[in-house]
């Protein structure tokens, strides 16, 4: 979706403001919101792409006026209701009305294994034959799906060069909406700064973006047909 989360290239935000000796969390509620998100996620009712997609639904003005862990909290509440773990009424009253069948809370003993899991979005490479290889010129499609996508707005309908083939990964766009694990090649694509931003961009700036194969089509060689 063309959401407010897609910030790349926007002006007007002012300087980056690093905090010296920044703590991991600034408030106790941030600790709890962080852990609640992880622990609820381990219940297995949604995946990481659904989590991102849920946060993207935050109304734009609210997104800009709130902090990172508030975004997480918004997404968590939305998913809890959407996936039937909590009813809207319960959330409103913050009072339980009944149990949820078939779920088991993540316990302390389950954590080491859960946190050290080594496989997430990567799938077996034989599941999808690569259409492109390093050095190929590609053009990103002009896509504006209302669903989830990981093709940022600033990189649509742009020509780049495949830097490397990362292998096969769960296609985020489908995973966020249907939960299906559709195998797709994921490439790192190199774009020259001037291709993305025009003549004012630095001549020696390049932007590398990880893009799924369905976002890409072949581009004619430089100087060839357009």
């Amino acid at each position, binding site marked *: 979706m063309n959401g407010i989360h897609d910030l*790349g290239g926007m002006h007007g935000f002012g300087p980056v403001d690093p905090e010296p000796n920044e703590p991991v969390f600034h408030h106790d509620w941030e600790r*709890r919101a962080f852990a609640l998100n992880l622990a609820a996620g381990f219940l297995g009712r949604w995946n990481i792409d659904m989590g*991102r997609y849920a946060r993207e639904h935050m109304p734009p003005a609210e997104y800009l006026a709130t902090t990172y862990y508030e975004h997480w909290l918004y997404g968590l509440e939305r998913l809890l209701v959407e996936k039937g773990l*909590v009813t809207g009424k319960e959330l409103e009253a913050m009072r*339980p009305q009944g149990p949820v069948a078939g779920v088991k809370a*993540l316990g302390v003993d389950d954590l080491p294994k859960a946190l050290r899991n080594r496989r997430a979005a990567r799938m077996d490479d034989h599941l999808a034959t690569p259409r492109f290889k390093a050095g190929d010129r590609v053009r990103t499609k002009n896509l504006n799906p209302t669903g989830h996508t990981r093709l940022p707005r600033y990189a649509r309908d742009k020509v780049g060069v495949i830097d490397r083939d990362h292998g096969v990964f769960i296609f985020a766009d489908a995973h966020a909406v249907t939960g299906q694990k559709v195998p797709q090649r994921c490439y790192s694509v190199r774009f020259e700064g001037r291709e993305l931003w025009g003549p004012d961009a630095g001549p020696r700036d390049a932007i*590398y973006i990880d*893009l799924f194969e369905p976002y890409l089509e072949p581009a004619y060689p430089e100087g060839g047909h357009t």
Partner: protein
Amino acid sequence: MSDHHHGHDHAHEHEHDDRPGAHGAPLTDIQLRVRALESLLVDKGLVDPKALDTLIDTYETKVGPRNGARVVAKAWVDPAFKQRLLADSTAAIAELGYIGRQGEDMVVLENTPKVHNVVVCTLCSCYPWPVLGLPPVWYKSGPYRARTVIDPRGVLREFGVDVGDDVEVRVWDSTAELRYLVLPERPQGTEGMTEEQLADLVTRDAMIGVAQVKAPRRW
């Protein structure tokens, strides 16, 4: 409760928050809302508060940029490790025991005198947790996410890094599930230092690509 990190009053609590748009407006009832949600989920048997405590402790005190610094220092002193690190970053990092969530598929980017790498996530705030811990507020903030892709040299200058015109800047927007770690250049004058001493020089910011590693004046 531990809202005392800054060691000063609450009026300053939010000045480094990561709201992409505004600064300074007070948070409303957020503490109460999170507490109520936690007790709701505990009462419904969906979360175990002890597991929450362990999760917090893990990411607040056990996983952090010291892990990444050890990877970098080892790459500086051990050419065979460096080669493995650049060829299969996930496996080489796992040799040091750093595995798991948000680090399942790692890519290490080597800075050289001709190439400076910097990492961003414009769409959310993807970050390599096992080697760097949780991201700082500025990394998740609007200014960094908006500007790094369009004005990388301007952003780097704000961090005190002046990249020469002859150096290519490569910005890596982590839009998929690959997680990036920058291997900074080893500073001159550190030839006799041990791996452990070198690790102490490596900062989180250098491994994101917004800083260079400096040699100590005297060691």
